[in-house]
């Protein structure tokens, strides 16, 4: 294995670790910072905030994104809010409580020290964003407003309408623009990283392809930062933007970076269901709808094709209320998602393809009046009508779970550096803070914590020893890696088969959704592990990628991403198979309590699974490294929100 697999968690009491670590971290003096070049791949909340901050500190930054502008990164689509332990509501919140809620929400599969640091800097993020002009919601007295969110008993979520991600991203985009104007940051939009360059065991550059011209370029740097988001699109359909992909992190994995907990993928229970095979993405509907909506499906399969108002009360199965009488329609995310899948698997789903359940507001409208429901959820009902053409005041909504966040990612130490020296990973792309399940409003917090506050403080620990060691792109490692990238592009174009890219990706997605989605079992995972290599074979023998490499070629662009998903999927299933317990979003059917809750096996699995690439195609090919998780402050308990 390249580099070190030491988490480098500082000693001392939990509350002092981050301060002590900063006090003893190395520094790069202002005059020397301009001698360092840093590559940042991705311009979302993590990458954008890191690029802006490092540029401001005087480093020379090159920032890359596949979008036509850094303002379009997928962070922009986050709706709900951002958590911070400000205790503005005087309801007993504290850094410790935010830390504890996050650890517990993650089902005790994340590092105490990282999560505590996240909670500690959460307040600074709000200060920073307000100073940048982020128009958070306010109370009449002019102070910041908060709302409550799942998994917490306090109101600590800051928000800007239902567009919090957009406003935070624009704040960091504007800070980035300021640095671009000063020349400290050079921006490369519509440019995709296709490989990582390792020189003498250190990450020292990347190979990119311009999406507008097809030109392959080499970029050398003193350090490389990946901020490339999650891999939810491995499922084909997810709430992610179309372009989100695993390529940068997967290519780094193939160059020796460890990939941690890839099977931890979160599925959101309330999305608008798929209507046809042509569908390209899924749209999230706020979970708050479950406060007033009742979830049901017909009791009889024969009734599924009928209009909902033709099914009498006696023919309806309000399955959440039936199975979970204490929580009912407000059962936790993972439980509601799994229950919906179960009834649909039984053939009792509704709508096109039988992949949907009703979320019915008739009772709430009868009780409180249509006006009240309109006031509470009017905008969501409008979005629903725009997409489905149905008026949810008159007919029940149809909802279905969808993939929307991935907790797994590249393994990093406390400095957010991977096992490859020089390669740092931030935001959703790393694995570090959310364990086996992420709480709502915590993704934005983590992205900005990493980019604004953590990485700028920890990066000098690496850089300080690297003065003058930046190689030139003439180095054979660059030439060789670029050659391999060109070769791969050429091979893809040469296949010249008959099968469409989307049909292969869709087949992969269905397989994963079925075998490695909301519920997994050993037999299903083994089956997926057999089928994925076959599908990968099919891709390399029969995919149809038209056009040329040296051109604007959207088919080629997507083909490269799908090719990586086809390899990555295998790692995900392998991880799910090896983790022979249930925890958080990873639900192994073999391990559940009598009530159907995830049943952890703390004796065997209180650790991070970090995979080392050693080839594809056989189950034991990648090598598993295990990082034991030490819980010094919290006690492991059965997660329960009853």
């Amino acid at each position, binding site marked *: 294995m390249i580099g070190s697999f030491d988490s480098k968690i500082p000693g001392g009491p939990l509350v002092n670790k981050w301060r002590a670590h900063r006090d003893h971290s190395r520094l790069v003096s202002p005059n020397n910072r301009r001698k360092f070049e840093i590559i940042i791949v991705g311009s979302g909340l993590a990458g954008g905030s890191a690029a802006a901050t490092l540029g401001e500190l005087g480093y020379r930054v090159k920032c890359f994104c596949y979008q*036509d502008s850094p303002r379009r990164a997928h962070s922009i*689509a986050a709706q709900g809010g951002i958590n911070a332990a400000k205790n503005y509501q005087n309801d007993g919140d504290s850094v410790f409580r935010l830390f504890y809620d996050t650890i517990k929400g993650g089902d005790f599969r994340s590092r105490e020290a990282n999560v505590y640091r996240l909670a500690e800097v959460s307040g600074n993020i709000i200060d920073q964003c307000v100073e940048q002009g982020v128009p958070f*919601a306010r109370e009449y007295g002019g102070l910041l407003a908060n709302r409550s969110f799942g998994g917490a008993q306090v109101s600590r979520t800051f928000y800007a*309408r239902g567009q919090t991600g957009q406003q935070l991203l624009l704040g960091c985009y504007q800070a980035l623009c300021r640095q671009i104007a000063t020349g400290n940051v050079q*921006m490369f939009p519509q440019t995709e990283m296709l490989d990582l360059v390792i020189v003498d065991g250190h990450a020292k550059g990347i190979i990119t392809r311009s999406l507008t011209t097809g030109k392959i370029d080499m970029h050398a740097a003193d350090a490389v930062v990946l901020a490339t988001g999650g891999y939810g699109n491995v499922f084909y359909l997810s709430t992610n933007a179309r372009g989100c992909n695993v390529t940068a992190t997967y290519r780094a994995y193939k160059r020796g970076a460890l990939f941690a907990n890839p099977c931890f993928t979160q599925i959101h229970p309330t999305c608008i269901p798929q209507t046809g095979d042509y569908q390209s993405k899924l749209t999230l509907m706020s979970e708050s709808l479950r406060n007033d909506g009742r979830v049901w499906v017909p009791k009889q399969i024969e009734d599924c094709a009928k209009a909902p108002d033709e099914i009498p009360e006696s023919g309806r199965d309000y399955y959440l209320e039936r199975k979970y009488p204490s929580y009912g329609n407000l059962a936790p995310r993972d439980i509601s998602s799994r229950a919906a899948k179960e009834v649909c698997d039984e053939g009792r789903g509704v709508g096109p393809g039988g992949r949907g359940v009703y979320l019915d507001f008739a009772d709430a409208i009868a009780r409180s009046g249509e006006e009240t429901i309109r006031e509470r959820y009017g905008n969501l009902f409008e979005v629903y009508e725009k997409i489905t053409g149905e008026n949810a005041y008159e007919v029940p909504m149809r909802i279905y779970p969808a993939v929307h966040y991935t907790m797994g990612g590249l393994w990093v130490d406390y400095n957010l550096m991977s096992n490859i020296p020089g390669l740092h990973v931030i935001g959703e792309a790393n694995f570090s803070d959310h364990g086996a399940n992420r709480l709502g409003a915590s993704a934005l917090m983590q992205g900005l914590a990493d980019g604004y506050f953590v990485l700028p403080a920890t990066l000098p620990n690496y850089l300080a020893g690297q003065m003058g060691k930046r190689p030139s792109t003439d180095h054979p490692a660059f030439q060789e890696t670029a050659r391999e990238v060109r070769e791969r592009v050429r091979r893809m174009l040469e296949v010249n088969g008959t099968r469409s890219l989307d049909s292969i990706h869709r087949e992969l997605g269905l397989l994963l959704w079925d075998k490695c989605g909301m519920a997994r079992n050993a037999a299903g995972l083994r089956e997926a592990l057999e089928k994925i290599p076959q599908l990968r074979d099919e891709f390399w023998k029969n995919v149809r990628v038209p056009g040329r490499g040296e051109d604007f070629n*959207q088919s080629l662009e997507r083909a490269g991403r799908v090719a990586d998903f086809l390899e990555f999927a295998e790692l995900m299933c392998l991880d799910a198979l090896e983790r022979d317990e249930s925890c958080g979003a990873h639900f192994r059917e073999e391990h559940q309590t009598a009530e159907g809750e995830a049943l952890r096996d703390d004796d065997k699995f209180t650790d991070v699974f970090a995979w080392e690439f050693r080839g594809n195609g056989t189950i034991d090919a990648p090598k598993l490294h295990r990082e034991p998780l030490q819980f010094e402050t919290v006690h492991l308990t059965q997660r329960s929100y009853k």
Partner: protein
Amino acid sequence: MNFLLRIWRQQNRHLKGELVDYEVTEISPDASFLEMLDIVNERLLDHGEEPIAFDSDCREGICGTCCLTINGEAHGPDHPGAACELYMRMFNDGATIYVEPFRAKPFPVIKDLVIDRSALDRIVQAGGFISARTGSAPEANSIPIAKHDADLAMEAAACIGCGACAAACPNASAMLFTAAKVSHLALLPQGQAERSERALKMVKAMDAEGFGSCTNTYECEAVCPAEISASFIAKLNREYARASLKASLGE
């Protein structure tokens, strides 16, 4: 549903483009406009033809990537909303639909329906920010902001940066885009220090990119997917006048 599509095809920014006809059949009314284009592309590939290049990403109306002029309207007929939020049930069966890129001189065509909107980024780089060094911010609640001001700032800040305003404007003016950012930051206490300089620099950058002037046609407001009010353009005019006056007085 069946449609006749007349789609703008252009190999690159140097060659001339033209409208090409495509008959498209058996489209579900529940398909989005972009999904309909996905289907057209799959069928083109089946016949060995080059797919139509078009941009999109989030496909839920927030990232601002998609930029189609549909039947002469920026983002098509279903306002307010981006092209990705348009569904085929909005059209009549058998309709002829014209699909072109956003048209404005500062948005050159890269290929087919994909355009270069980096001009908008450069307007923001000229001054569309508050210089707040990371780590130097005061405690967030130390400066109360009246709810009305914060809400109004949010209304301006909601701009998704798609450029539909400039595409719809007969003068290809980017006033609504620029006004939204100048207004957002001018309405907040944190934005005061750079308020004058920001208005002057952003307007100068807008002019330098080749965007036209505003003649109050309000086409921009009509197509804006984020429903940015044209009253912010009046606000920009006031901000610009105020800043010019201060500059002329040497303040």
